[in-house]
C-alpha cells in the first residue's frame, strides 16, 4: 500500500496515537495484510515505537503480516459448534487443503482460520468462506464445498 493512502487513513483519525489499532484495522481491511514498510510509516506518523506496533500486529488476530489467500476459510469452533462436531470438520478441511489454521496454502488460494463463534449456532457446525455461511456441515460435504472455489 503506498504511503499516500496510509497517510490518508492516518489523517482521517487525526493522527492520534490512541487511534493506532483503528488505523491498522482499516489498512488491514483494504490491503488484506500489513507490509513492513506500512508499519514503519505508521510508526513515523503516529510517533509510536515500532516495537509496540509489531506487538499489536501479532497480538490481535485480525492482523496479518503476510499476504493472505484469495479465499478466507473460517471454521467456527465455538462451543455450540464444537459440541455438534466442528473438530471433525476442521480435521477434514485441514487434510483437504493441506494447511493448519493461521496458514495460507502455497498457491495463495485458501487461508484457513478458526473463529470462536459466528453467532449462527442454530446452523452448527458452520464453515464460512469469503463471508458466505455454510451451515450444518458434515465432513463429507466439506470436500464438495471447497471444490467450488478457484
Amino acid at each position, binding site marked *: 500500500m503506498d504511503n499516500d493512502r496510509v497517510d490518508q487513513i492516518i489523517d482521517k483519525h487525526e493522527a*492520534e496515537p490512541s487511534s493506532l489499532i483503528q488505523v491498522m484495522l482499516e489498512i488491514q481491511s483494504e490491503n488484506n495484510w500489513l507490509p513492513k514498510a506500512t508499519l514503519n510509516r505508521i510508526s513515523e506518523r503516529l510517533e509510536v515505537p515500532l516495537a*509496540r506496533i509489531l506487538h499489536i500486529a501479532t*497480538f490481535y488476530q485480525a492482523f496479518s503480516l503476510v499476504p493472505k489467500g484469495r479465499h478466507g476459510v473460517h471454521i467456527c469452533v465455538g462451543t455450540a459448534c464444537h*459440541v455438534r462436531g466442528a473438530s471433525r470438520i476442521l480435521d477434514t478441511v485441514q487434510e483437504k487443503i493441506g494447511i493448519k489454521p493461521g496458514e495460507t496454502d502455497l498457491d495463495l488460494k485458501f487461508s484457513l482460520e478458526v473463529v470462536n463463534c459466528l*453467532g449462527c449456532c442454530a446452523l452448527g457446525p458452520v464453515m464460512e468462506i469469503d463471508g458466505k455461511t455454510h451451515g450444518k456441515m458434515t465432513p*463429507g460435504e466439506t470436500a464438495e464445498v471447497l471444490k467450488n472455489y478457484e
Partner: protein
Amino acid sequence: MSRINSPAELDEFRKNILSERDPNKPCITLCAGSACIATGSGDVALSLEAEIVKQGLRDKVDLRKTGCHGYCERGPMIVIHPEEISYFQVQPKDAAEIISETIKEKKIIKRLLYTDPDTKEKIVKESEIPFYKHQERLVFGSNGSIDPKSIDDYLAIGGYGALKKALYDMTPESVLEEVKKSNLRGRGGGGFPAGRKWEGSRDDPEPIKYVIVNADEGDPGAYMDRSLLEGNPHSILEGLTLGAYAIGSHEGYIYVRQEYPLAVENVLLAIKTAEEYGFLGKNILGSGFDFEVKVHQGAGAFVCGESTALMTALEGRVGEPRPKYIRSNIKGFWEKPSVLNNVETWANVPLIINKGADWFTQYGTEGSKGTKIFSLVGKIVNTGLVEVPMGMPLKDIIYKIGGGIPNGKKFKAVQTGGPSGGCIPEDLLDLPVGFDELTKAGSMMGSGGMIVMDEDTCMVDVARYFIAFLTDESCGKCVPCREGLRQMLKILTRITEGKGRQDDIQLLKDLAETAKGAALCALGKSAPNPFLSTLRYFENEYEAHINEKRCPALSCKELIAYYIDPTQCKACMICARKCPADAIDGGKNKIHLIDQEKCTKCGTCYEVCPSRFSAVTRISGEPVPDPIPEEERIIRKRKKK
C-alpha cells in the same frame, strides 16, 4: 431534519410519526439478524419485495427488516401484523403465496406455521408458541418491531422517552438512585451492581469521566449482545446517555468486535441519526447536556472483553489487563473514572428509568432482579436467544422453551458462563437461574451463553476445549495463566488421547489453585472453572479416561474405534461410498469392514448407516474384534422355495 430541541417538540414529532402509521395496515416483519441472513433471509426479503410490487400492493403493505427475533433454529422467519401470524423456515419461493394468500385473502398457509412436536397442533400467533410463551421479553422483544436502521421506528415504540424524562423531570442524582434501587447487576459476567459502580465514578472529584459499552462479546456460543446491538442500537445509545447524565460524563465509547460488521454498521448509523435528531451531541433535546459517542472496533482478542484490558485496547495498546487494586470506576480509561458496562446492562437502563425501579424489581429473585437474555445453543431442539426472568428453573428453560434434547438423546449437562463458567448436571436442573445460585453450583452466569450437552459429549474433552480456547486467548503476561494453562492443556490433551497418568488430577488441581489465587485478571482466575466443575460432577469420566483408557461418551478420537457389526451389516454400500478416507472395504452382498489404519474417526459412516440396520458402532476401552473370516463376509441370499 432539524434537531429536536425540547420535550414538547419530541412529543409532537412522535405524535406525527404515529399518526402516519396505521396499526391495521398489513406489516410483514422479517428477521434480518446475522443468523437469519446466513440462512437466506436476504433472498426472502428480495422475493417478498418483488411480489408485493408484482401483485399491485406497493404502499399497501409494509415490509420491515428487523433485528433478531430469537428463534434462530427456525429461521428465516416472518411475523405478519396486525394478526401476529408467524411463518417459519420461509423460502424465497414461498413469497408469491404469502402475498396472494395471507396478505390479500387473509388465508393462513398451514405448512409454514409452527407445529408442536408432541401434540402436532399448529400455532398461528408468535406469542402462543411454547418457545416464546414462557419468555419475558422485556429488553429483547422490541427487536421484532423495529428496523434497526430507522430511528423513527424506535421513536414509534416510545424510544428516547426515558432520556426526555431524565433530562427534564429528574436530576442526575435521581437517575443514579433509580438505577441503584433497581439492583441492576452487570449482565456481562461479573454481576456487579451497576448503581454502585456508577456511584463510585459519580462521587470522584475528577471532572473528566467516561462511559463505555463493552460489546466485545467473546464467549463462544454467546451472541446476545450482537443481536441487541444489530437489532436495537438506539436502546443502547439511550441507556449510555442516561448513564453519562447520571455520573457527569460527556464522552462515551462503544468497543465492538470487528467480527460483528453488521453491528458496527447499525450502531454507526444509529449514532449519526441520533446526532441529527438531537439525541446526541451538544445540547441534547435542548437541555444543555452534551454527550458524544465514538465507536472503536476490536481486533480479535477475547481478553479485550475484560474491562481493564478493554480500556487498555481503547488507548491503542495491546489488551493486557491491569490489576484491579484501584478500581477502574475510579482510575480507568486514561486513568479517569470510567463506567464500563455490558451491552445488555445498558439496554436495561431506559426501561428502568421509564417504568421505574419498582416495576423492574417485580421481576427476578431477591439477589438477581430483572431478566436475562441467554443464547440457548448446542444439543437443543429450539436453538436461539431467549429472555427469561431471573429465577426461572434451568429445567424450564431447557425443556419448556428449548424443547429438550433432539434425536431422543439424554441430557447430560448445561454449560453456563462460557470459558469462565462450569457445567451444571442433570440433578441440579431445578436450580433457579441467577448470579449467586449458578456461582454456588460451581459455574457462573457469565454473559449468558447456555450450551446444552447430551450423552455424546465427553466432559473431559469439554474441559480440554475450554482450556485450549483460553490458552490461545491468554494475553501471556502472568505466569499462572500463561504457563499454568499451557501445562493444563498438555495434561488434558494427554488424558483425552489415552495417555493420562495417575498423578494428573492432582497436578491439574495444583495448577488450578495457582491460577485462581495468583493470576493477574479474571480470565486467568476463572480459567480453571470448566475443569473444576467437570471434575466435581463427572469425576467418573476422568477416571475412565485415565485408568481404563476409555471414553464413556464415545467421543475422544484416540480412544474410540468405529466398528461395523457383521451381524447387522446388510452391505448397502452407503458408508463405503461416503467415507472420506476410503477406509471401508466391502461390496454388494459383502459385509463391510473398516480398515482401522486408514480410519480418521470422522464419524460419517456412523451417521449415514440407515437406522434400520444401525450396523456401525463405536467401541472404547476394549480392542476392536478381529475381522470375521472372508467367506463369512459374503451375504448369501436365501433361496425362496
